[in-house]
């Protein structure tokens, strides 16, 4: 039975991701793990996250799982969710925190007093359902309508240096990268485990992805 490992670096609330994956991939074993060996043995790896960046990076370093995460990032289908996407970049403005630095770029806070076209101040966190434009095709987008809405809850967003990395954007009010893809890696800012049918479809796609484009 193929194994999907959800990395537990000590910040909690991984159950929602696990429950959603178990729901869409009943023929696979979904494990929440604190073990480097289990991450190495897994067929697919999920790096989740939804807490504050400084505490999460500190917890990740304490967990001793960094090397295993980085190996999985290079070697097998790898899925980052929310903070698990932001961690892939070099650093975050949230607490001026160094992140994993696997892709060049920074995580930035939404500017204060952003306004939409009708002049209303945009609220931060960017919280709720927003349409995601698929900027390129990807196996994880298969069967998901371009422009489908996903659930977001974040105050910081990824600004990768390489535009090629971006696989999806959402407008708030300007387009921000909300999906990154490169080789065997797919990462999203939204919460697919909380995005009803569209989110479950992305998770199902990842659960059956071989990591090739």
């Amino acid at each position, binding site marked *: 039975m193929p194994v999907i490992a959800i990395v537990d670096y000590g910040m*909690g609330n991984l159950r929602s991701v696990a429950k959603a994956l178990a*729901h869409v991939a009943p023929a696979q074993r979904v494990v929440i793990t604190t073990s480097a060996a289990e991450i190495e043995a897994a067929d697919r790896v999920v790096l989740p996250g939804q807490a504050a960046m400084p505490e999460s990076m500190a917890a990740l370093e304490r967990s001793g799982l960094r090397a295993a995460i980085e190996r999985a990032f290079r070697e097998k289908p790898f899925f980052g969710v929310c*903070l698990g996407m932001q961690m892939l970049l070099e650093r975050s403005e949230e607490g001026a925190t160094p992140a994993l630095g696997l892709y060049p770029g920074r995580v930035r806070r939404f500017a204060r007093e952003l306004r939409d076209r009708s002049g209303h101040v945009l609220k*931060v966190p960017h919280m709720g*359902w927003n349409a995601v434009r698929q900027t390129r095709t990807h196996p994880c987008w298969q069967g998901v309508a371009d422009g489908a809405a996903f659930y977001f*809850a974040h105050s910081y967003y990824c600004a990768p240096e390489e535009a090629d990395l971006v696989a999806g954007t959402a407008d708030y009010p300007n387009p921000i990268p909300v999906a990154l893809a490169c080789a065997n890696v797919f990462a999203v800012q939204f919460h697919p485990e909380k995005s009803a*049918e569209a989110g479950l479809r992305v998770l199902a796609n990842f659960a059956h992805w071989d990591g090739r484009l």
Partner: protein
Amino acid sequence: MLARRIIPCLDIKDGRVVKGVNFVGLRDAGDPVEVARRYNEQGADELCFLDITASVERRGLLFDLIERVSAEVFIPLTVGGGVKTADDLRPLLNAGADKVSINTAGVNDPSIFDQAAHFYGSQCVVAAIDAKQTRPGFFEVFIHGGRTPTGKDAIAWAREVEARGAGEILLTSMDRDGAKTGYDLALTRAVADAVSIPVIASGGVGTLDHLVEGITMGGADAVLAASIFHYDQHTIGEAKAALAAAGVPVRMTG
């Protein structure tokens, strides 16, 4: 474009959904998992559970309920009621809650917002504010389920919880709760304009027009309602159609 959200609210007592007027005269409104499933199928954007269970012994029922709902309903879940310290957030989040609302405990010790935002991130910290107009132009914060006045100005309190790290405000008008005469639009607008975090309007919905007004006139980012959905007066789909017809961006499903 970010959609405005429709959030059915389930008041939970001893593991059941209940609904009353002005927090008294509670009536049974069903099994929480069944109700949650129905709302999810109708296209609810999020669900809110407010636990009003009085006894500590029966609080465990809430965790079991969140576990069961989150295993089959894949939309955001906000849970509140009975949170006393920042440590109380973790078991709720671990059970499957995405956001936790803090009310009385935040008034008693506002630093709970700072701590909760620091450890879990602002995105999961909701400040629940129950407000009542106690003299012209003054909205006063009430705690203990609306029983205890605090002397605090609701608008100033909203600014303070934002500064302390709350990521969202759930604003309930005590005057309107259960009255079905519409949101308190003056209160909603005043708070929505005072903060730059999302505001959920609550208390008083009796018609679909009230939902529309909460957004177009009250400036709310999301609208919460209970009884119009619980007793099948309207579906979530009808509510979304009403919002869309008024030019409000909504997430259409099905």
